[in-house]
């Protein structure tokens, strides 16, 4: 579904450019949940941004559903891939109603039966139509994240990129969102690429995890290995230890 080969990226700076991704290799199968963990600034978001077309000028090869990403336009990409952001407060336009937020992707694509789709998407994320006329500031963080997810799935993408979708939320709300993601995954056969700094969250959702440190993937482990402490790299061990200590 997604295959990333020797992806490198230099952030062009005002004085000198800085390498923030170095030789990344990942391949993700259809319907798989793949996780990315790592410390802050290790380049997790950057990988997603490369995929989403936010960063241009990377080196290497990225293919989505076998098609080279470099050759697909943003518009085409938007049909297969959507993204959910970390901060539910910043991801929704503060002056758009929920209706408008959900309507926009449909309007851009020029799709019909808009209201049905909107209602369905809302139902998928466990909200009802009473939310439609509201503005984001009238929703709680969890509800906003649900709307953001609804916006992502309303175009029926195959892949959803999740950038720390719960790290801004309270643990109790986090649980709700994680449950939602699990059930969506199951129902729609979505492919997830999820970023988090919390090993526990990743392990809950994903079958495989890539551990990142300063722009590189230090290792890719499966959930089972993780649970058994079957990890090679020292940094992964630190992460694991921390995660376990929290239980």
């Amino acid at each position, binding site marked *: 579904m997604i295959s990333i080969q020797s992806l490198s990226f230099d952030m062009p700076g005002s004085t000198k450019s800085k390498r923030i991704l170095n030789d990344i290799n990942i391949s993700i199968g259809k319907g798989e949940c793949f996780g990315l963990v790592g410390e*802050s600034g290790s380049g997790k978001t950057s990988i997603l941004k490369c995929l*989403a*077309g*936010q960063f241009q000028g990377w080196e290497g090869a990225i293919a989505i559903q076998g098609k080279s990403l470099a050759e697909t336009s*943003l*518009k085409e*990409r*938007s*049909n297969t*891939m*959507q*993204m959910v*952001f*970390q*901060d539910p*407060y*910043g*991801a*929704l*336009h*503060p*002056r*758009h109603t929920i209706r408008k937020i959900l309507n*926009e*992707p449909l309007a*851009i*694509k020029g799709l019909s039966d808009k209201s049905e789709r909107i209602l369905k998407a809302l139902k998928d994320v466990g909200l009802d139509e009473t939310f439609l*006329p*509201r*503005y984001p500031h*009238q929703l*709680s*963080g969890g509800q906003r994240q649900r709307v*953001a997810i609804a*916006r992502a799935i309303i*175009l029926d993408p195959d892949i959803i990129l999740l950038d*720390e979708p719960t*790290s*801004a*939320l*309270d643990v109790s709300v986090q649980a709700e969102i994680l449950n939602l993601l699990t059930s969506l995954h199951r129902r729609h056969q979505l492919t997830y690429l999820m970023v988090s*700094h919390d090993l526990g969250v990743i392990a809950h959702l994903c079958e495989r995890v890539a551990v990142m440190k300063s722009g590189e993937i230090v290792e890719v482990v499966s959930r089972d290995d993780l649970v058994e402490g079957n990890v090679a790299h020292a940094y992964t061990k630190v992460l694991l230890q921390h995660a376990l200590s929290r239980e």
Partner: protein
Amino acid sequence: MKNAEVVRNSDYSLKARHNPEYTRVALFVKSFKKLCRNPLSASGVIIVALLLICAIAAPLIATHNPLEQDLARVLASPSLAHWFGTDEYGRDVFSRLVYGSRVTLYIIFLVTIIVGPVGLLVGTMSGYFGGWVDSVFMRITDIFISFPSLVLALAFVAALGPGLEHAVIAIAITSWPPVARLARAETLTLRNSDYVVAAQLQGASACRVLFHYISLMCLPSLIVRLTMNMATVILTAAALGFLGLGAQPPLPEWGAMISTGRSYMLESWWLVAFPGAAIMLVSLAFNLLGDGLRDLLDPRTE
């Protein structure tokens, strides 16, 4: 880990989780009430409202024809017949002031509808596209900003010839750059915001993003800026009038009234005092209003 302070459930309790829906109107009324709670902002609102009333109902409020000369009653001091006295042609100063509010509003209105859209367009495009578009636009704004606005306006009016329309054009030419800069700065912070990225991911065109997402967010601060700008516009127009380059006689423009009244100032203080006070009051009102609006929109920094 992320800064948890950023994420503050402002309405904590369960009850608040299902807070009542605000309609736009209700929100507006609420904001307006809040604006009026501050006595300073409220007085700004009142004065601006008075100005509007004066302009709309000028014929009803004015006691005389503002243009009618009466050489027999020149420079009469304030009295019951002429509340603010008469000028050197025997025209009623009060009525001229009242009609002058139309000129003032006309200038403000024209300048604002030129400056707002132009500034918004240039600023947002510049900020959004970056690269050479940004460079070109910003160099142009730099050039315009490099002149003090009064000097530039002077130069333009001198170039175009004196007159109200020319003054408006000159003022507009000089006052769009700060607006554009503001819009650009706002756009720069918005450009990478998640909701804009989300829209791009959904395949929204640049146009759509600019008009549906970014402009909308720039508007509040732009409105504040424009409101404050109105005060400057009034002063610049008055200054142009004062230097004889603004509205031309017999139009009762306040600055021009001061300019001509100045010759009679020592004996006939009312010729200068009232228009001066009017300019000050209205300009102050717009400043207060802008201040209040800013408080409303950004309560932390003023």
